[in-house]
């Protein structure tokens, strides 16, 4: 658990760490995550590069999926046990973007994933 440790993990493993439930695209859990972005502001999400990344958010409206699509985010996990709108799931399915939901808070989710060596989505430049 040294600082600067860089790790990757499959969504499958990430799901276990966050005790998360899969909402859609469960057949894509072999995708790898290297970076995490925790945000409820979509403009903030768009300001970062998102290769192999997970978005943690408390927002559940369809714009989350659209934003993730624009920023080329791999998967989204909703925090605090939030259930997204049906429209959100529909959009994600069409884009083959796995959606998860965890009962943990944003803080706790970040804490656990940071401990596993995942790192931040760094700013573009």
């Amino acid at each position, binding site marked *: 658990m040294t600082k600067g440790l860089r790790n990757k993990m499959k969504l499958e493993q990430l799901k276990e760490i966050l005790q998360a439930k899969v909402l859609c695209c469960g057949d894509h859990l*072999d995708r*790898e995550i*290297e*970076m995490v972005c925790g945000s*409820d*502001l*979509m*403009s*903030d999400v*768009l*300001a*970062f*590069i998102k*290769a*192999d990344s997970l978005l943690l*958010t408390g*927002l559940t*409206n*369809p*714009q*989350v999926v*659209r*934003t993730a*699509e*624009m*920023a*080329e985010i791999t998967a989204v996990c909703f925090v605090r046990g939030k259930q997204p709108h049906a*429209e959100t799931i529909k959009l994600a399915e069409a884009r083959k973007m796995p959606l998860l939901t965890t009962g943990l808070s944003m803080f706790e989710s970040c804490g656990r994933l940071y401990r596993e060596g995942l*790192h931040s*989505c*760094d*700013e*573009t*430049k």
Partner: protein
Amino acid sequence: MKPNESKPSSGADPSENSGAFAGPDSTRYTKIQELVYELKVSDAMMRNIITTTPDTSMSELREILRANRISGTPVMEGGKMVGVISIEDFIMWLGSGKADCPIKEKMTTEVDTMYANEPLVHAIGKLDKTGYGRLPVIDRQSGKLIGIITKGDIIERLLHKLEIEYHEEEIHRYRASHIFEDIIGDKVALTFQSSVKGKDFSRAGEASSGLKKTLERLGIHPQIVRRAAIASYEAEINVVIYTDGGTITASVQPDKIRIDVNDTGPGISDVDKAMQPGYSTASEWVREMGFGAGMGLVNIKKCADKMELVSTVDKGTHLRIYIDINNTQEHSKAG
């Protein structure tokens, strides 16, 4: 004789390949793996089957194999397959110097078969394990013999399929990269326009999502596509949040993409202030949707190579964004 196998390692799990950083060879490899799972035995088998009967003589067999240029046939009796006779069996008989005899004395009676709807990878596995050169193919419903499959058929089918896909990709790439060369004119631009409905948050982003797909199809560099899509998306959100609607017009030129976002009001009273990070006049409901944090215009500016914003209160706002198609340097991938 062993045909030269391209052996796509039937046992390997295709998911083991970590896609993102795989080199060109491994993506090719993955493509073959994909195909052997995707294609069915019936896609590669020979349907035109030459058969023999148990009473055909070995000397007749020689003529049948030679005339049809095949290396073996199923042996049929009363519509049922009772064995397989191959060129190996023929050579063995020839080598033994024995007198002519009916096929039934030399044929293999314990025959491994494949079902037509099994994936190709099963056939590869079975051919590999048993060492047989061919496998009769049975229709699962009727139980009837409908074809025969050899290693050669499988390789031929795979190569053919790969070639088709490669060819399609080439055409696609050609279209994209030469689109402007093929059009004659002093000034050429491809223009796409979408209308954006004001206050309809559930559909916000549709226009930009469409623009992103279009630009991808045109074969524009992914970084450029991403920047254009993000800029357009932020602008679209602004139109949805603050106005009664407007239009997004993207014009793709040989060297740049120009995106015009126009609306008819209410306009921005202080453009300089609006450009400051964090400045926002958004109402609480917008903020709770995850927008209106005063970063939209800042993000647009960051994505654009040039940006012009003209706004008149009560009249409307015109935002023009230029993205240089060849400028892939400065927004290089982080991490």
